[in-house]
């Protein structure tokens, strides 16, 4: 079974930054925000965040014939967040995906709903919860977040082919069971145009029993992301800002377990490089980036067409608005 990219898209979408720049009294200032690497921001108290992420993945195909190789995918992530106070935010995300093969077969639908809870902290002569108001000097302190996410099996994990056979578990629009993720992030704004961001996260899945009695437990996932953000342009009077980001995204995928045994052609590790840009206007922001698999060490490299690390590229777009 191929472990398909919905897992990656869902998990990074869950934990990734939501693209709201820090906008101070003096104008558009504060830390930058990458696309895939989680920055250590929390939502302002009482604010609502609307969020959309689109991730288009184009896979390398091994043959020129129409033989069922994964060709492309589109992942849509609709999100809503709320800042309960300055240091605690919660989000709900509804993913939708379309996955196409080169033989015209495709699956699509809403995937499992997910929830995320984020606790913000900073270091200022000691570790403390993120305060409600910070000066430009306070924003230069190291900031951190810790987060917990889980999905509920609201998607369909038992979709069938016209002949009644189950579609491959990796092509289903649901995991069938909850999944859980823990994450940590750290952000340092240097008080000028530069911001350094890093995060780690660990994602684990429960074993699901499908309607035909087969069992699958997707492999655990570990991520380590680092990013630098550089402010290319800002116009404080109109609160307009443009940032360039460069990210390195490491992903380790555990081997899937099928009916108690390790599944062939699953798992491995890889590094993506992700150049991108973010345009912010007041409290609205759009970002685009291209995620390029730069180094891979997959378990069965030649058999993992359509898996993470086997993309030509991933094109990512996000939109967020703080209300």
């Amino acid at each position, binding site marked *: 079974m191929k472990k398909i990219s919905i897992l990656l898209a869902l998990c990074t979408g869950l934990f990734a930054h939501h693209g709201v720049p820090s906008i101070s*009294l*003096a104008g558009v200032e504060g830390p930058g925000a990458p696309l895939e690497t989680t920055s250590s921001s929390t939502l302002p108290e009482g604010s609502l965040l609307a969020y959309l992420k689109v991730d288009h993945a184009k896979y390398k195909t091994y043959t020129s014939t129409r033989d069922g190789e994964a060709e492309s995918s589109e992942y849509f992530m609709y999100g809503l967040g709320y800042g309960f106070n300055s240091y605690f935010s919660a989000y709900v995300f509804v993913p939708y995906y379309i996955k196409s093969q080169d033989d015209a077969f495709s699956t699509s639908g809403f995937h499992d709903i997910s929830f995320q809870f984020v606790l913000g902290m900073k270091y*200022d002569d000691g570790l403390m919860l993120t*305060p409600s*108001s*910070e*000066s430009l*000097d*306070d924003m*230069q302190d190291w900031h951190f977040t810790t987060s917990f996410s889980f999905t509920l099996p609201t998607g369909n994990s038992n979709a069938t082919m016209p002949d009644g056979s189950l579609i491959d578990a990796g092509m289903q629009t649901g995991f069938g069971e909850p999944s859980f993720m823990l994450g940590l992030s750290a952000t340092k704004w240097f008080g000028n145009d530069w911001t350094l961001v890093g995060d780690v996260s660990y994602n684990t899945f429960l074993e699901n029993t499908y309607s035909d009695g087969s069992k699958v437990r997707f492999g655990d996932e570990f991520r380590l992301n680092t990013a630098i953000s550089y402010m290319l342009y800002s116009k404080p009077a109109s609160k307009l800002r443009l940032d360039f980001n460069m990210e390195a995204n490491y992903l380790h995928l555990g081997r899937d377990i099928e009916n108690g045994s390790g599944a062939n052609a699953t798992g491995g590790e890889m590094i993506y490089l992700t150049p991108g840009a973010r345009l912010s206007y007041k409290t609205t922001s759009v970002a685009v980036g291209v995620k390029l698999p730069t180094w891979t060490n997959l378990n069965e490299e030649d058999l993992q067409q359509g898996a993470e690390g086997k993309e030509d590229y991933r094109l990512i777009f996000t939109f967020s608005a703080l209300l």
Partner: protein
Amino acid sequence: MIITQALIYSLLAHDMWVDDALVLHYGHMQMNHSHGDEKEIKKEEISKVFCSSGSNVFEIETKELKAECDTLFIVLNEAYYTKTPYGTKRQSKDKTKMAISSFKSIESVKRINKDNSKQIFNKGLELSLTNKLSSIEVGDKARLLVTYDGRARAGVSVAYADKVRGVSDRDGRINIRIQKAGLQNIKASLTLKDDGIKSDEIIHSSTLNIKVLK
């Protein structure tokens, strides 16, 4: 709003400071920014001078700035400014023909010289330190409390090194990182509505001077 912004920019553009010889100045503390308009503020322009020494707080009737004060707080005379089609006049709105808008300016300067002295004088807008002056070095934060008539005030703009660094939080607190050794000039600004007779707005501005040795 335009007046408010103008004043904030004006606040950023000019300094007031008490030097080591206890002379109150107006102009540019960093002379490379100077427009040549530096001047010493005379007693006639000062409304009140307060002094704290240990736990004693008193008003200096003579308006002399005294070396024995752990903290000095100087309130300048109030001034009205009224904008008209033919320029800005230094007088109240009710005494000005064709007034467009006006504000009353209330300015003050505080110099803190020692730890553990009483710093809050309950007179309009004030900036005070909540950490020890003697412990602050370059790169450290000056942890400030903004008060208005002695009570913590949120939402007050605070500027340092020619830049607004932020606004005070709900507890009146804001932190500023010291950038260079020497006499520091930290400024706060608060705009309140007036009744529209003599002025439309009252703009309070207050400067805090502290000396950071290293």
